């Protein structure tokens, strides 16, 4: 083999290794460039702001989802947990926003605990355990809210959804801080390493003395609590708590964001920044199609195609 071909093969191999890592960012960049050229007012701060605000719930839910997927699990119940959080808020808003928010998060914690328990102790497959909770959780939310939605008039609470700091909405700050925290958790903590080991090889993690059940339960609790935070933010933003609608199908958006962001569904790896980028990509995609007034049918088909292309670019390559 001549050295020239050796160099190109090496270059190709390197590119192949880098693409999965940076594929989602490339796609994001392409989409942004497209919008800069074709969409009016795209670079206006007010527009960027709206995109960020709209993507926050998905980002927050997807962060939890990424952790769960890192353990080779999946959490379908996040949408229902959001609804539960939304249902709890108006019930306790009388005691002040703080109390209501805490109780909404406790609601998430309980669901997460049940999910985690079903997975870690009963040994259910995550998709089934959380599927049951997807159905039942929304039912509980509806029962709690007596099946009807409530308008929220508490100004302090609404401020969370509409106020801003340094020109950036609180909700975006919250999502950014949470993303940072989850990133730190994965990269730098004992918990994060254990989580990845469980996702890679659970029996091995058991024999290595990793407290597998505790880690799994914690992961599902984190996912559910993040989902209820998203629910709270959503309620504060739209000013009403509608348990039958909030978080509908968000599990699919979150999973898509995680996978498009380069986290494999097979566990053992979590890409936090990629997840955020994945969520942004899907958000911008929707926005682009709305801004250009595409019909729903076309929009769905385009979205399908983009998901496939993005995941294809982000896939792990194994040599043959």
């Amino acid at each position: 083999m001549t050295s020239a071909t050796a160099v190109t093969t090496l270059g190709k191999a390197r590119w192949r290794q880098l693409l999965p890592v940076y594929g989602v960012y490339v796609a994001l960049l392409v989409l942004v460039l497209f919008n800069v050229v074709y969409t009016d007012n795209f670079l206006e701060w007010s527009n960027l702001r709206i995109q960020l605000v709209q993507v926050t719930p998905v980002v927050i839910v997807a962060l939890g989802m990424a952790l769960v997927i890192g353990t080779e699990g999946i959490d379908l119940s996040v949408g229902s947990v959001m609804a539960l959080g939304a249902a709890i808020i108006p019930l306790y808003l009388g005691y002040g926003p703080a109390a209501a928010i805490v109780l909404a998060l406790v609601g998430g914690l309980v669901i997460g605990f049940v999910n985690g328990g079903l997975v870690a102790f009963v040994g259910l497959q995550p998709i089934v355990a959380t599927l049951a909770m997807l159905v039942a959780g929304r039912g509980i939310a509806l029962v709690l809210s007596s099946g009807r939605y409530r308008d929220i008039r508490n100004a302090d609470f609404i401020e969370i959804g509409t106020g801003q700091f340094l020109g950036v909405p609180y909700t975006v700050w919250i999502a950014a801080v949470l993303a940072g925290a989850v990133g730190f958790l994965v990269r730098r903590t004992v918990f994060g390493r254990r989580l990845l080991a469980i996702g890679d090889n659970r029996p091995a993690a058991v024999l290595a003395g990793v407290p597998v059940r505790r880690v799994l339960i914690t992961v599902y609790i984190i996912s559910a609590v993040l989902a209820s935070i998203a629910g709270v933010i959503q309620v504060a933003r739209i000013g009403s708590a509608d348990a039958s609608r909030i978080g509908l199908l968000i599990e699919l958006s979150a999973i898509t964001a995680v996978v498009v962001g380069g986290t494999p569904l097979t566990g053992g790896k979590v890409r936090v920044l990629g997840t955020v980028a994945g969520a942004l990509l899907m958000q911008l995609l929707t926005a682009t199609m709305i801004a250009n007034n595409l019909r729903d049918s076309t929009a769905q088909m385009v979205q399908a195609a983009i998901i496939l292309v993005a995941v294809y670019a982000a896939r792990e390559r194994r040599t043959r």
Partner: protein
Amino acid sequence: MSLLEVVGVSKQFPGVRALDDVSFTLNAGEVHALVGENGAGKSTLIKVLTGVYRPDGGEVRYQGEAVSFNGPLDAQAAGISTIYQEVNLVPLMSVARNLFLGREPRNAIGLVDVARMNREATDVLSGYGITSDVRRPLGLMPLGAQQMVALARAVMVDAKVVVMDEPTSSLEPREVETLFGVIHRLHERGVGIIYVSHRLDELYRICDRVTILRDGKLVHAGKLEGLQRVELVSHMLGRPVDAGRSFTSFAGEHEAAAAAPVLKATDLSSRHRLNGVSFEVRPGEVVGLGGLLGAGRSETIKAVAGALPLDSGAVEVDGRPLRRPSPVSALRAGIAVQPEDRKAEGIALGLSVRENIALAILPRLATAGVVSERKIDEIVDTFMQRLRIKASSPHQRVGDLSGGNQQKVLLARLLATGPKVLLLDEPTRGIDVGAKAEVQALIDELASEGLGVVLVSSDAEELIEGSDRVVVLRDGAVVGMLRGEEVTTEQLMNVIAVAAS
């Protein structure tokens, strides 16, 4: 004319040159040994031969013609049958279905004839000494038996070439004999056999010629007869070794008699698996667990490590009983376990060498839950050097290491926990002579440092040489014990035989 030939093949993996201009020739009717250290490229060469990997350069010739198999199926259709290094069967499917997968007997209308398949499977397998119900899931059978099924499967077709990548690594002496019988029959039929093993005795018993690889390069090829063991090993290792050493690297007895036991297992019972197993290990002592396949040795190890739910029984470390046995509490008490099935239960293949080594001791390397990269680096460096782990960097994926190096990574993880008791289930399975000697020496060293070691090995010689005492198991119960002078292969077989009658 040669049956199968490889000319100047190269194969590059990210960061490693697994094969570098390797040539290899197999003639009809010969048993050809393929040897080399861990990571020398043996399995890679086999996978190139059978179309699993596509070579970067070079050529494969089969019966004189250049071929490029498009996967194992292609190779199989052409008459090259392979038993891969790791047992590669489907555990959830029945034994019979595994045996016949892809060539099930069919009835007149093309449906699988299940009755006939089961009958034939029973017949075929009884020839290999396997009498269990062929309708049961394969995964419930012991590893050795699974290996025999894989062997039966490979040999069932009319192959011209049979490739065996470490077929004996999980076999008992008795089963090894069965295997050799099979090889003998194939040999007589004029089949060419490629045989990979780290057990030199076996090579000398059955092989005609040998090809030696080192670091992906061909270093020697020729007749095995006349090639001294020492020469063979020095070729493999790339350095001269002194002749006249014993078969294993164990130094011998340890002084442990007086001390109080560091591990005490009492009356371990678990339905259908263990039946009141009791034994003790003193600091500095290596206790072997002997017995035939399925005697319950692995179960005993798991029970002590807290990974097998017990109906009754107690485990004490340093006189302190383990409350609520679990792998976590066992680890905390100072028990480190190396499981039998490295790939399934041992290491996390997708994680790096570094993460694997640090996995069990993360809390110790962290403050307030945040890990210190520096502390991890220190530990990892120490153990990578001490065990001579060959990896391109600590960040390399363990799944891309050779089998032996994977094993060393696993051992490094155990040692990093600073255990009082080491439970080793087949610690030298699938690792090369050099590494094996290192591991054995390491066990010795650890014992002399005062650790209690429990050793399980299906290599009787290793068990006898390495152990100070041997507890003999059968059907999940202790049937005897050998100590001091009694620790010999004959005595071991004797006890097993007495218990059986």
